[in-house]
């Protein structure tokens, strides 16, 4: 799972004590102009979880509020490697003296994390290794082995860092810690810059979460999911489910487009915010298990309304899928049912028996309870 730059910076580098340039997020030309007013001469960067943003035209400098707005206008709505740009990072334009490269990744040979550094940054690591091998250092750090300032300085020996050895060594130890503690598959700063004022800051940042470890990094996984909202939607589409992810916190699972929209409306009516639209009407009613998985994959969901009103769709079949998904995923969010129509006796008995939950008689009451629980 690749993280966008500003998330990697704010959720990983900054908490670990690695300095980044002053920056603000913007999602409109006006916001970019405002950010300029605060920050001054700046770089405006598309926030999409992929490299090659510069090549795609997703990075522009601006020297005035108008230029910032213009750049934002151009970049917003672009699509870079399949990601629609809907967010920009407006960042102070640092006066760069030197560019370095720093990264940590798993090393097959040593079966350990490998710290990489080069006193030449700004290009691909393959290019650095090929073109400037003298500037390149690699140090595996066995699990449990110490990698403190002394070890980092030892690794940097013989490189000219223009007087920034101590700062760089410090940053390498922090990067190593991020790698280990956050289950990274890659953490990379390129370029890591020494500025004219002597600060060493991460101009860009890449973080890839080890997908196999996402289960124990729920905060990071949630952050990543929020930043890529369309992934869940795409997953839904591919299994024939019309799933639309919204920014509310009450998850919705209902059968039929009409009933689903209505459930969302009633959530809004009672002051809540629906977290999704999900269509399991028609033949798709047999897919309630997958549908529930999708709804619960939305990290915004704080409570859940399951509202079945069976006509063609059999509520007993849907309830079976729900119970299956529930038992597999063991979610901790509170769930509120309302079940009526075709198959209701079996469906209610199943939910009662397997989940120990008593469905509400009125959907309005189920929704009210869910809205309350999500607060």
């Amino acid at each position: 799972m690749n993280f966008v730059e500003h998330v990697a910076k704010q959720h990983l580098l900054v908490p670990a004590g690695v300095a980044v340039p002053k920056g603000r997020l913007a999602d409109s030309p006006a916001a970019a102009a405002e950010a300029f007013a605060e920050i001054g001469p700046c770089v405006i960067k598309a926030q999409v979880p992929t490299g090659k943003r510069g090549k795609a035209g997703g990075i522009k400098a601006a020297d005035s509020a108008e230029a910032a707005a213009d750049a934002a206008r151009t970049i917003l709505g672009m699509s870079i490697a399949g990601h629609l740009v809907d967010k920009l990072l407006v960042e102070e334009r640092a006066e760069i003296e030197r560019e370095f490269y720093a990264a940590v990744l798993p090393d097959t040979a040593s079966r350990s994390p490998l710290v990489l550094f080069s006193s030449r940054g700004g290009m691909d690591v393959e290019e650095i290794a090929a073109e400037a091998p003298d500037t390149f250092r690699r140090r595996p750090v066995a699990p449990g082995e110490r990698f403190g300032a002394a070890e980092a300085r030892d690794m940097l020996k013989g490189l000219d860092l223009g007087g920034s050895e101590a700062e760089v060594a410090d940053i390498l130890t922090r990067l190593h810690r991020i790698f280990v503690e956050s289950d990274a598959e890659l953490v990379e700063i390129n370029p890591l810059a020494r500025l004219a004022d002597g600060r060493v800051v991460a101009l860009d940042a890449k973080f890839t979460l080890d997908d196999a470890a996402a289960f124990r990094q729920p905060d990071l996984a949630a952050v990543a999911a929020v930043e890529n909202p369309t992934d869940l939607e795409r997953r839904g589409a591919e299994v024939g489910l019309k799933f639309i992810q919204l920014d509310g916190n009450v998850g919705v699972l209902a059968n039929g487009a009409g009933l689903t929209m209505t459930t969302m409306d009633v959530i809004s009516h009672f002051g809540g915010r629906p977290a999704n639209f999900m269509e399991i009407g028609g033949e798709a009613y047999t897919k309630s298990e997958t549908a529930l998985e999708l709804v619960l994959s939305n990290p915004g969901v704080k409570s859940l309304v399951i509202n079945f009103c069976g006509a063609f769709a059999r509520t007993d079949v849907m309830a079976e899928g729900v119970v299956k998904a529930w038992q597999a995923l063991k979610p901790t969010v509170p769930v509120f049912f309302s079940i009526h129509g075709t198959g209701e006796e079996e469906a209610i008995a199943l939910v009662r028996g397997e989940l120990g939950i008593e469905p509400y008689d009125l959907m309005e009451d189920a929704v009210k309870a869910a809205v309350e629980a999500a607060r």
Partner: protein
Amino acid sequence: MIIRKHHKVLVQGITGKQGSFWTEKMMACGTQVVGGVNPKRAGETHVGLPVFASAREAMAAAPYDVAVMFIPPAAAKDAALDAIEAGVKLLVMLTEHIPIRDVMAVHEAARRRGTRTVGPNTAGLVTPGEAFVGIMPGHNPNVFQPGRVGVISRSGSLGTLVCLNLTRAGLGQSAFIGVGGDPMVGTTTRDALEALDRDARTQAVALVGEIGGVMEEDAADYAATMRKPVVAFIAGRAAPPGRKMGHAGAIATANRGGYASKRQALEAAGVTVVDTPGEIAEACGRGLAHGQCGAEQGSLSMEA
């Protein structure tokens, strides 16, 4: 398009899983099913009914008024044309995802022949205590009870919810008309409203709409002329604009077709628009209590 006890019904695609299941439900509710169609099993008996090779053959052997289609999309056009040519009065098309060209061809054939079509992608028609055709829980007494409110819905699930609420409120239904979730349906919300206005047993109407298309706006024009109370609920108020919400027809647009447009049009026509489906029954009750019931003005003709 109100289904009646005296209507004779043919089930196209009767031998399929859904066709068999729902035919038995329909008959359990008193619907007079006279037979079914499956060209490959003509001459057999299925769920106790004769199976014919075509709707035309069936018409000769066992005349019927209504045909209901349990037919997959690719075969839907031929089945529909068969029934229309056979002279069916009312054709109920449950099938979703029929190619648009076929839908247009069927509507055109129906127009020429004077056949009333309902759907495609309708959940069907129910008249509690009389009959039902389609895929609604017409057999569930918690949902359907003979009563005074006519219900129009584009959605089967939402229609079920509203009928359930009306039954709990002791009002019941005079008729349920599922107009269908497709953008190009044979019977529009307005058509259904006119039929319920003419129906003597209907004393109030619950109109269950959705965002997308302009069927609710069109119906509002007619509602303005009615004396029976009309209560409406429009699904999709909270839907994010510009995104398709499952039904092909439901795209909220800036002007007509959106929630605001529909609500405004209906309220301007004197329709009570409620915020939750739970309020429909209460609002119908209030409307009926005001005595605005047009019970005597309807006709009892065959509306199909």
